[in-house]
C-alpha cells in the first residue's frame, strides 16, 4: 500500500483549512483579533454554492465560477460584520471580543438554520473531477489536485498582496508595531475592513470548494472553525506562512492517520495541536510577543 494517495488528499484537505486559516491569521496579525464567526463565513460559502449550482450539470468551470461568486457574497457579509459588529469589539478585553465573535457565530449559525433548514444538503463533485488520476504507479484523487492548485494560487496571490501593495505594507506594519503604525497615520478601521473583506472572500471560496467533499449541515460552522483555530495557533498567531505550514502538517497527519488508524482519526488532529502548543506555545512560526492574555 502506497502512502502517496493519502498524502495528496491530506494536502487537499490542508488547503481547505488554509483558505480559512489564512484570513484568520492575517486579521489576527493586523488587529489582534481572533474571529469565531469566520467558521460561519466558511459554512455560508458552502451553502451559497449549493444555491448557485444545485440545479446545474456541474462542470469544473461552473464550480470555480460558483466558488468565486460565493466568495464575493461572503466577502460582503464579512465586510458588513466588520462595520456593524467587529468594530465595536476591538476596544473590549480580548476574551470579551472573542466571545463577541462567538455570539456572531451562533447568530449566523441560527440564520443558516432558518434559511437552509436543519437537513443536510450536498453538492456533487463536478464532472471530470470525481475520480482518480494515475501519477506514476499510484492513483490520486483528482479533486485534491484541484484543491492543491487553488491553494498554490492563493499563496502566491496573498504573498503579492502582503509584499507588493500598500495594504500589505500596512498589515505587516500593524503586526510589527501597532502603536507606531497608528502614530504614522495609518487608518486602522480602513485596513481592518479591507482585511476582513479579503479573509471573508477566502473563507467563502474555501466553503464553496469544500462543499462537494462534505455534507452541508448547520453545525459545519462550529466544527470547522475549531480546526481552523488549530491551524492558526499551531502555525503561530498572526503568521501567514505559519498557517500554511500548519495546515499542511495537520491535514496530512489527519489524512494519513485516517488511512492507517481510522479509530483515532479525529483525535490525532487535536493531539498534534495539543502537543505543539505545549512545547512551542507561540506556534511554529509565531513570535511569543504577539500572544494576548
Amino acid at each position, binding site marked *: 500500500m502506497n502512502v502517496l494517495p493519502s498524502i495528496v488528499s491530506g494536502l487537499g484537505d490542508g488547503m481547505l483549512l488554509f483558505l480559512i486559516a489564512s484570513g484568520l491569521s492575517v486579521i489576527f496579525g493586523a488587529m489582534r483579533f*481572533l474571529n469565531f464567526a469566520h467558521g460561519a463565513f466558511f459554512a455560508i460559502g458552502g451553502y451559497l454554492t449549493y444555491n448557485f449550482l444545485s440545479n446545474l450539470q456541474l462542470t469544473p468551470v461552473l464550480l470555480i465560477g460558483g466558488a468565486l461568486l460565493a466568495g464575493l457574497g461572503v466577502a460582503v457579509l464579512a465586510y458588513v460584520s466588520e462595520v456593524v*459588529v467587529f468594530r*465595536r*469589539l476591538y476596544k*473590549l478585553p*480580548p*476574551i*470579551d471580543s*472573542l*466571545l*463577541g465573535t*462567538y*455570539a*456572531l*457565530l*451562533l*447568530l*449566523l*449559525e*441560527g*440564520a443558516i*438554520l*432558518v434559511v437552509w*433548514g*436543519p437537513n443536510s444538503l450536498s453538492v456533487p463533485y463536478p464532472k471530470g473531477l470525481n475520480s482518480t488520476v494515475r501519477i506514476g504507479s499510484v492513483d490520486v484523487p483528482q479533486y485534491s489536485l484541484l484543491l492543491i492548485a487553488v491553494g498554490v494560487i492563493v499563496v502566491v496571490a496573498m504573498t503579492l498582496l502582503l509584499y507588493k501593495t500598500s495594504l500589505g505594507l500596512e498589515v505587516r506594519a500593524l503586526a510589527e508595531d501597532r502603536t507606531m503604525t497608528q502614530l504614522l497615520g495609518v487608518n486602522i478601521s480602513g485596513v481592518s475592513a479591507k482585511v476582513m473583506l479579503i479573509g471573508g472572500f477566502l473563507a467563502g471560496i474555501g466553503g464553496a470548494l469544500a462543499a462537494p467533499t462534505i455534507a452541508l449541515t448547520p453545525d459545519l460552522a*462550529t466544527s470547522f472553525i*475549531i480546526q481552523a*483555530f*488549530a491551524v492558526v*495557533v499551531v502555525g503561530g*498567531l498572526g503568521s501567514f506562512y505559519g498557517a500554511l505550514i500548519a495546515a499542511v502538517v495537520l491535514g496530512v497527519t489527519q489524512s494519513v492517520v485516517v488511512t492507517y488508524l481510522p*479509530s483515532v482519526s*479525529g*483525535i490525532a488532529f*487535536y*493531539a498534534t*495541536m*495539543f502537543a505543539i*502548543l*505545549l512545547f512551542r*506555545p*507561540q506556534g511554529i512560526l509565531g513570535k511569543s510577543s504577539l*500572544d*494576548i*492574555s
Partner: protein
Amino acid sequence: MSGKLTKAPTTGGPRSWSRWFTTDRRWVKMLWIAAAVLAIAYVVTQATSETPPSFFVEIVLVQVLYAMSVNILIGYAHLPSFGQAAFFGTGAYAAALTIQGVPLYASLFLAVAVSGILALLLGLLAVRTSGITFANVTLAFGQMLYLIAANSDLVGGENGLLASLPSQVSPQSFWLVIVGCVTAGCAVVWWMFRTPTGETILAIRDNPERASSLGISTFRYRLTAFVVAGALAGLAGALYAFATGIVTADTLYWTRSGEPIIMCLLGGSKKFFGPIIGAVALTTLLQQVGQGSTSYLIYVGGILLIVLILLPQGLLSIPARIRQISSRWTSSGPSDTTKAAAL
C-alpha cells in the same frame, strides 16, 4: 465599601429619586432578604409536595453551579478556558459509570475527585501557557475527550449511558441533593476568594508581573484555581447526568464549554452573583425560545452581542450604568462619576 458611601452628603435636586436609588442601599438589603425567604420557601414546598420537583429548575441550578465554576477561571483567575466541558462531561460520565455500584453521595464524590484529578493533570501542562494559547490548549484537550467518548464502546459511543438514580432516592430527596450541592459549590467559591489563597489569585489576575516579582508562584495559584474549577464543573456534570437521566458525548463538546462563559459575561464576570444571574437568565431564555426551534441560536447570539456591546460589565452592571447616566443628567460634577466608578 458601599456602607461608607451611604453616608455621603446628598445635595438633593430635581432627580432625587435616582439619588435614593443609587446611594441609599437599604432597599438592596431588603430585596436580598425577600429573595432568600422566597427561595427557602420554594425549596421546602418542592421537597414536600407530592408531585416531583420541576425539571427545569433543577437544570437551572446545575447551570448556576457550572457557570460559577467557570467564573473562577474567567472572572477571578483570567485563565480563559474553552475546555471546561471536559470536566463537566467527565463528572457526568463518572457519575453514570459508578452509580450502579455505590450510593449517590459516593458517586457524586467520585465524580468530583475524578474531574479534579483530571484538571490537575491537564493543569500541570496547560497552566504554563496563558491567553489565547491557553484557550486553545484546553479546547484541544476537550475535543480529544469528546472524540474518545464518542468513539468508545466502553461509554456507549454516540448513544451515551443511562444515569438513573437508585430506587431508594426519591425525586424529592434528589431535589434537596441538588440544592445542597449547588449551594455548597457557590459557598466554596465565595469562601475561596476571601482566603489568602483566593486573594493571591486575584492579585495575580490584576498584575501577574508584580505578583511574581514579589516571589509568588503564579503557576501554583493558577493551578489551584484550575483544579477547583474543574472539580466543581465535575460536580455540576454529575448532577446534570442524574437530572436528565442520560449522559452523551455532547456533554464534552466544545460548545458546552462556551455556554457557561456566555453566562458569566452575561451576568457580569467580575461580580460573585454575575454567573448566577447569567445562568438563570440564559437558561430561562433558552427554555422560552425552545431548544429545538430554529430561531434559538439567533436569540442566544443576538442577546449576547447586545449585552457585550451595550453592557460590557454584564447585567449586574445595570445599576451602575443607571447611576452613570443619571449623574450625567444632574451634571453634579465629577465627584459623582468617580463614586459610580468606585461602586
